[in-house]
């Protein structure tokens, strides 16, 4: 809320301080800027998402260089209008747009101020291009800094923590923003020097086409993961006791990964690995999956062979190969014992990622109900992980998991079942009720 007030003050202030923009130039860029923000695309490395900074800087440089117009108010207004994203409407979030408003206006005002300060009265000629380049870099730097400081602050006050996933790639994002601001500024100056309005059409055209492709890319990426999810659902539909298991394992694995300070791409790899960690079961006859008690040696070998065939096929997809390796490594123990997939040899320690998936898998297996026992409590599951930490589980992973669970504040499993024998009896004799 203070942001939106500050933003409003900045907007009104800039209106009085600076000259109004040349609306003919302002309008097309404002439309493009708002559209780009509205259809902002979340790409994995988050670098291209904020390409709107380029448009803002183009408009800013044009407005600052034109004799009868200033950049500050024009940019502030442009920023203030781009406050909505489709998700806000879908999820009926009205607080977010207000914060966005303040944050955009403040960042744009500062950038506009810098542009006005250094570009006022500069001649529109090829000789001044170097100056324009330096100034737009400065302005873009200010724009990015203000925005990041504000967002960081907001996140800290709202969520009470600092190490949010997006911020792990801050430097890349920063460099990207500054570079795009620089290009945007140069385009603006070139546009005025060449004095041809047709250029706008080409710039906007190339830009829009690129953005459309990026949008298509983001959608396809989502459906890629969606397809795997669809398969997992089918797999789980076979057995009511494992329903939702994969999604939960992915959730826990991501939680541990965040706690261990993994970055965006690494987290995505872990999420994918967790999603596919049980796909091998698709090929295993259901009676084996559902069998109560231990499998005999032949059955076990059969199950392993089937699961391995699926892993081999999935590993043929280049993109999935690292994930399959992690997923197949989750069977093996931290000390290197146990079966860990086709690439695993006895005594070799599995990767950290595989250990994360293993811990998440084991935790969910304990805290959800099975046909032969009730769900166990979170406390029991953690103590089990702890007990086998160093042998079956990675000690760092167990520590991180415990911390992350404590932070999340949610509890999993049945709160009072702290004993495996009790859990079995409860499942076998439904009339037994538990008194906490």
């Amino acid at each position, binding site marked *: 809320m203070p942001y939106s007030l500050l933003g409003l003050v900045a907007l009104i202030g800039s209106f009085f301080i600076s000259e109004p923009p040349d609306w003919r130039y302002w309008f097309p860029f404002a439309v493009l800027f708002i559209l780009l923000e509205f259809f902002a695309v979340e790409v994995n490395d988050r670098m291209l998402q904020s390409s709107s900074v380029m448009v803002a800087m183009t408009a800013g440089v044009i407005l600052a260089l034109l004799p009868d117009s200033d950049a500050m108010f024009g940019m502030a207004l442009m920023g203030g209008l781009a406050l909505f994203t489709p998700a806000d409407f879908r999820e009926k979030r009205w607080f977010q747009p207000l914060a966005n408003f303040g944050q955009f206006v403040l960042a744009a005002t500062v950038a506009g101020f810098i542009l006005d300060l250094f570009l006022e009265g500069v001649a529109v000629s090829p000789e001044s291009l170097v100056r324009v380049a330096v100034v737009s870099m400065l302005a873009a730097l200010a724009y990015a800094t203000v925005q990041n400081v504000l967002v960081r602050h907001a996140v800290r006050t709202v969520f009470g923590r600092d190490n949010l996933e997006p911020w792990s790639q801050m430097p890349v994002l920063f460099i990207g923003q500054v570079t795009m601001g620089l*290009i945007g500024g140069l385009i603006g100056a070139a546009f005025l020097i060449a004095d*041809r*309005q047709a250029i706008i059409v080409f710039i906007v*055209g190339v830009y829009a086409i*690129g953005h459309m*492709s990026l949008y298509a890319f983001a959608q396809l990426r989502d459906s890629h993961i969606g397809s*795997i999810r669809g398969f997992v659902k089918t797999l789980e539909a*076979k057995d009511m006791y494992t329903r939702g298991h994969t999604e939960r394992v992915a959730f826990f694995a991501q939680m541990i990964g965040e706690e261990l300070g993994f970055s965006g791409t690494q987290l995505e790899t872990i999420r994918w690995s967790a999603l596919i960690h049980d796909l091998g079961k*698709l090929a295993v006859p259901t009676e084996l999956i559902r069998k109560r008690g231990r499998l005999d040696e032949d059955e076990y070998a059969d199950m392993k062979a089937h699961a391995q065939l699926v892993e081999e096929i999935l590993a043929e997809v280049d993109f*999935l190969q690292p994930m399959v390796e992690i997923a197949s490594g989750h069977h093996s123990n931290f000390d290197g014992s146990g079966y860990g997939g086709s690439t695993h040899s006895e005594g070799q320690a599995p990767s950290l990622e595989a250990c994360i998936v293993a811990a998440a898998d084991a935790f969910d297996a304990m805290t959800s109900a099975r046909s032969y026992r009730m769900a166990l409590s979170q406390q029991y599951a953690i103590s089990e992980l702890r007990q086998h930490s160093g042998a079956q589980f990675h000690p760092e992973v167990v520590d991180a998991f415990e911390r992350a669970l404590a932070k999340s504040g949610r509890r999993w499993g049945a709160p009072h079942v702290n004993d495996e024998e009790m859990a079995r009896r409860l499942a076998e004799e439904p009339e037994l009720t538990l008194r906490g």
Partner: protein
Amino acid sequence: MASWGARTLSIVSWLYVAVVAGLGFYAATLATSDPIAILTGVTALVVASMVGVAASNSGNRFTTGLAVAAAVPMVLGPVDQVDLAGSIAIYGIGLAIVWALRYSRSEKHVDLLPSLLRRFVGYAVYATVYSALRTGPFTELSGDWSDLFPFAVALAAWIAVEVFLRAMLVVGKRELSRSYLARSLLHDLNVFLGLAMTGALFGELWPAIGWWALPIALLPYSFAHLAFKRFQETKVTYKQTIRALARIPEVSGLGTDGHADRTTDLASAIAMEIGLGPVQVEDVEYAGLMHDIGRVSLNEPQILRMGYSDDDIARWSSEIIAESPYLSRVATHVRHQYEPYRKPGEQTDPDVSVISRIIKVAAAYDWQVHQDRRSPLQSLETLHAGAAYDYDPEVVASLRRLLESRGVLTPVRA
């Protein structure tokens, strides 16, 4: 074409390159620009042609050479006139060099042959229209939206010629229908337009700011380029993943090994042959890969006990893919894949799409050849016999043409 020897073909291909180069050199003698400018243009074109982006799975590939070519008529020569002959000279010579490089590396002359001619004619039309419409010098037009007009019309003419020639010159690619070829280019128009506009941006900026125009024009494009590339890469990966998933029931012993893959190849070839567009061909591919995925349910003991029908498998398959966002659009095609294409007394069944009919024919053919061990001709006969209700006769006829052109069946001529 098939009766020609590879040697003859190679000679003809090189002859083509020589003719285009000759035309280029002839145009160079008529050009008003100096040889240095033309040489620079040719070099830029050849270098830019090394950087390309594969636009889609239909095999269209565009290079930044297109942007250079689009810019040439705008920047060549003095500002007050278009050097048409010079532009054509640059394109002809540049294209001949690029194609000579490609021929020396590739054996597939047949595929490259028509595109060389098409590109040259298309570009000549673009340059001619542009120079005819650009009456005044750049400076007089400046500050006016009418700058756009010559470029827009010339670009439209270029695209029209490309699409038309692409559809007409189907040398050696008899499996592809003209309609498919033309539509696949229109489908990839975004890449074409992005490149052409980048060239125009450079051309517009050049007279005012000189070489500064290069980074400024290239940077928005590099953003677009990155986006094109990532989209294509993801698409390839996605298809690989779907292909891998399609094989799960097969390796588990719940289906015939390779059935989904072979059915998909055959079905998409039929789709291209009968003239569906690239979007539908893609749907055919996904539907083909997923048409038997419901077989993963066959390892459930109670299903094996109770038995199942083809219709059950179609239902399970469509239920599985309906859960996936991108694939869900082919779920209905998969659902109706086993149904007859028409009911007695009715011309067609509107529920059974052409995609379902193609899958039905391709899957049945592959099943008979690989599972029932019949000969291709016997299998085709069964399909012909079932063409009253089960199999769409047009699709069966297309399959026959396809098998003939692939040499699986000997062509019968009346």
